[in-house]
């Protein structure tokens, strides 16, 4: 047999072996930094499973069951792109979803445009995914850095403080949150002064020194973007050193159970935060979600659970609306797609592909040795997003 024949035979053999199995499911690819962001993504995965159960027990979508193919993205954009390719080319998924960190989300966003694959970014918050780097094939669920900062603005403005200190993790999310905050507050309150900016490396804060430096700058108020382990360290040092005494603090994400619960009795009372007071939201939609979640997992939901749950629900709704799993039809169907969530109804805007699902804004409080949110209200995403005309200007021409 000549070499050429050998390869042809090989090709045929491999081809036969890999003949796709019966097409009775719709495969959805999901990739995320499960290993390194497990505090958020562990509940997220459970949320996805819950949604999947609900959908499939009702017969799935378009008469087919949804099948989820979940992958770790190695917390690395390069890996993430390979994993996305693997999902598309080997697993034959009809679309991809997921990602957590902003830069990984951006890499996959770009991949989606290049390979014309539908991508639903679940969690990454950077504005760029739907604005500066937005494209036809990418939608995003979670309220963005801009939106969450804007949600906190009324409280920041109401504080009527002149000297502000900023503290944020030194990467895309922290940097853009700080920029958004400065721009928005300056607009509302032109005489504001930003007396110090502390930008510790993500996961490596030297909390005592940072808290002290903020105190030494003698600010009237503080804007915080730290989360996770950095937040816990910062809060404990700040409490002991009296940094938060008589100073209003507005803080992104700190009311999310993922980041609030570890603080326990250390919870900084009075901070105005965005978050998720899961045990206090009594809307029927949310109660049903919490009950189902607790029944299935014997655990309470975190914000990640909601994001995972709604991600899958969105996908099902989008496919149902498109009546197809073809990429172009999905893109069309997601534009203006309306659906319900535990937080209430929301939609995916046609203009910038951003979902209007909002977040809860409230004050941190201590109840029974645990952190919780009080005086909270739900802020709908559509109330803080710029107008369609404005975002058109932000997006590249070919994305619209």
């Amino acid at each position, binding site marked *: 047999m000549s*070499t050429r024949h050998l*390869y*042809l035979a090989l*090709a045929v053999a*491999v*081809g036969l072996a*890999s003949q796709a199995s019966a097409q009775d499911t719709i495969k959805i690819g999901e990739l995320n930094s*499960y*290993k390194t962001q*497990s*505090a958020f*993504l*562990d509940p997220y995965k459970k949320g996805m499973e819950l949604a999947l159960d609900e959908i499939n027990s009702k017969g799935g979508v378009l008469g087919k069951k949804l099948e989820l193919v979940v*992958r*770790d993205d*190695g917390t*690395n*954009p*390069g890996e993430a*792109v*390979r*994993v996305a*390719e*693997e999902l598309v*080319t*080997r697993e034959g998924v009809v679309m991809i979803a997921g990602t957590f960190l*902003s*830069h990984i989300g*951006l*890499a996959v*966003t*770009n*991949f989606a445009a*290049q390979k014309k694959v539908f991508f639903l970014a679940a969690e990454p918050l*950077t504005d*760029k995914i739907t604005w500066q780097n937005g494209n036809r094939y990418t939608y995003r669920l979670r309220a963005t850095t801009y939106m969450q900062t804007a949600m906190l603005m009324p409280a920041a403005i109401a504080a009527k403080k002149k000297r502000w200190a900023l503290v944020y993790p*030194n*990467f*895309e999310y922290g940097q853009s949150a700080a920029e958004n905050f400065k721009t928005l507050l300056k607009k509302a309150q032109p005489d504001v002064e930003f007396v110090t900016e*502390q*930008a510790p490396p993500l996961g490596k804060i*030297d909390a*005592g*020194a940072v808290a*002290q*430096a903020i*105190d*030494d700058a003698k600010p009237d108020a503080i804007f915080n973007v730290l989360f*996770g*382990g950095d937040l*816990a*360290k910062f809060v*404990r*040092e700040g409490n*002991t*050193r*009296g940094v938060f005494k008589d100073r209003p603090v507005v803080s992104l994400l700190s009311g999310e159970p*993922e980041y609030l619960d*570890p603080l*326990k009795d250390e919870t900084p009372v009075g901070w105005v935060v965005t978050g998720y007071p899961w045990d206090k939201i009594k809307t029927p939609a949310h109660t049903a979600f919490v009950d189902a979640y607790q029944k299935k997992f014997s655990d309470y939901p975190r914000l990640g659970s909601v994001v995972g749950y709604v991600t899958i629900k969105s996908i099902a709704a989008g496919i149902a609306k498109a009546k197809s799993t073809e990429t172009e039809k999905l893109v069309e169907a997601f534009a203006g797609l309306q659906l319900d969530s535990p937080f209430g109804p929301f939609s995916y805007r046609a203009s910038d592909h951003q979902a209007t699902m909002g977040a809860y804004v409230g004050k941190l409080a201590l109840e029974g040795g645990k952190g919780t949110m009080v005086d909270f209200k739900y802020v709908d995403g559509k109330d803080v997003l710029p107008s369609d005309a404005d975002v058109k200007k932000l997006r590249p021409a070919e994305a619209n």
Partner: protein
Amino acid sequence: MTFSAFLFQALNGLSTASGLFFIAVGLSLIFGVTRIINIAHGSLYMLGTYIAYSFATKIGGVFGFWGGIVATALIVGVIGALIEILLLRRIYRAPELFQLLATFALVLVFNDMALWIWGPEDLLGPRAPGLRGSIEVLGRRLPEYDLFLALIGPAVLLILHFALAKTRFGRLIRAATQDREMVGALGVNQAILFTSVFALGAALAGLGGALQVAREPANLATDLVAIGDAFVVVVVGGMGSISGAYLAAVIIAEVKALCIGIGVVDFGFITVNFSKFTLVAEFLVMAAVLIARPYGLLGKPQGAVRSIAEPEEPIRPATPMLKMLAVIVLAGLMGLPLLAQTQPYLLILGIDVLIAVIFATSLHFIMGPGGMHSFGHAAYFGLGAYGAALLVKWLAVPMGIAIAAAPLVALAGALLFGWFAVRLSGVYLAMLTLAFAQIVWAAVFQWEGFTGGSNGVIGVWPPPPFDKAWVYFVLTLLLTVIAVLLLRRFLFAPFGYAMRAGRDSPLRAEAIGIDVKRVHWLAFAIAGGICGIGGGLFAFAKGSISPETISVGRSIDGLVMVLLGGIQTLTGPIVGGSLYAILQDTVMRQTEYWRALLGIIILVLVLAFPQGIVGAFAALWRKRGGGP
């Protein structure tokens, strides 16, 4: 920043310094005596925080907290002893650095073990009983626990110092640090000495982790943060010197506290946020110290350790069998594009594997035959990748030019950094290369306007026809084959021999007219340049590039590939690179606990093939009398 603020920040720095000291001192002792670079040291530290958390919350109270800290140190000490007895003792005869591979596998296993036991959420322990509050210093509030930490570091330093000076065990440790063979000659039971030192070092790491329980949450990312800090402190202080470790910890902590204290400064023409420098401060300190004092602040040149491993075989041209194998593999790879329709992912994975081969082979070039253990090879990969991507982003050059420029950018970087690096040797060289890689990483990360910062450069896709996976695969294959053959050719040429002569015996090489530093410098540059080809290919394969490409993790991946394949063979890095890339791809898909699985697979390979996979087969081949 007022003077009192400055003084107070200096005080803050001392408590941070104690934390750094505890992470580093055990690593330093272990390295001093056993010459093992224990990557799992950060994991032991992390376990310390977790175990102490369990004591403090499950038992609780004064006893649960303080007693728990002591108990934690003992438990982690026992874990350390077990690691030495069950794992490392079996591979002391392997080529140097191979033990690093084993401890790397432990990092993976321990991390997933902690996830399994303690769950994914951060666990913030209670405040320390008796030291909950703060005291007034310089008109500011200093947490009592910080003051306690600031004092306990020097206290432990003193205790260790006296123990090393006054006890027989201590004198043995010091003797072994200076001259390991002498201790063997004195009839000391080396196995017991090594086990004890490992236990002591681990206990100190556990103690350090446990002491942090009142300050920071137990967190699954601590292991890598801690090992990074530990390396820097140990190297700045001088390997094996405990006073040096404390001195270095203080310097680094103070530099950071100062950066944070200074905060944002407006120079009129430019506004600098000094707090952002904490990202790279320690590595700048390390690079500066190593350039000025090649053995760290208080380190002494260490007597060359005669490797107890089997010496390396002379290199031989490929045997007919190997040549045939290469042709078959190459033909198989050439055939892959035929599967573009049915198995498109094979090509995608193939591209990644080939890039890994370039990465591993170029690293092996200096690590194996050059004896220069670069821990920062990712820098040159990243320089190549960023070089290519930024040319596309800013100058919109075509892909051909960008990929051609990639090795040149990497070469320039390697020429610059290599010039400093080859002046050092052994672990100091390794750490200087690491520092340079971190500096490149930080520059890329911080220089947002030019490099895109943490987001990197997005949208670097190959133009048609290379947008088809099979075409890009063929291009990658072609460049990989060229790169591998070039490096191989160099090794068989006088330059490669001169490089090995310089490694085998620098003194003798100099005595026959070889400028060893210059040869090694050029070798370093060549390896960097070739690695840059891989970087350029990577950028276009992924369509984007981010600072992760230059991260420590990637540099360590390179080491793992080289060691897995076998550092003493020329085909080792090809096999190691391919295997590791495929393993990662496969394992990551298999299970939730993929890291532990990968760790266990590496452990099995380590124990089964202590000379690397190709090394083991080569040895077997020789033993059976096959071929010279």
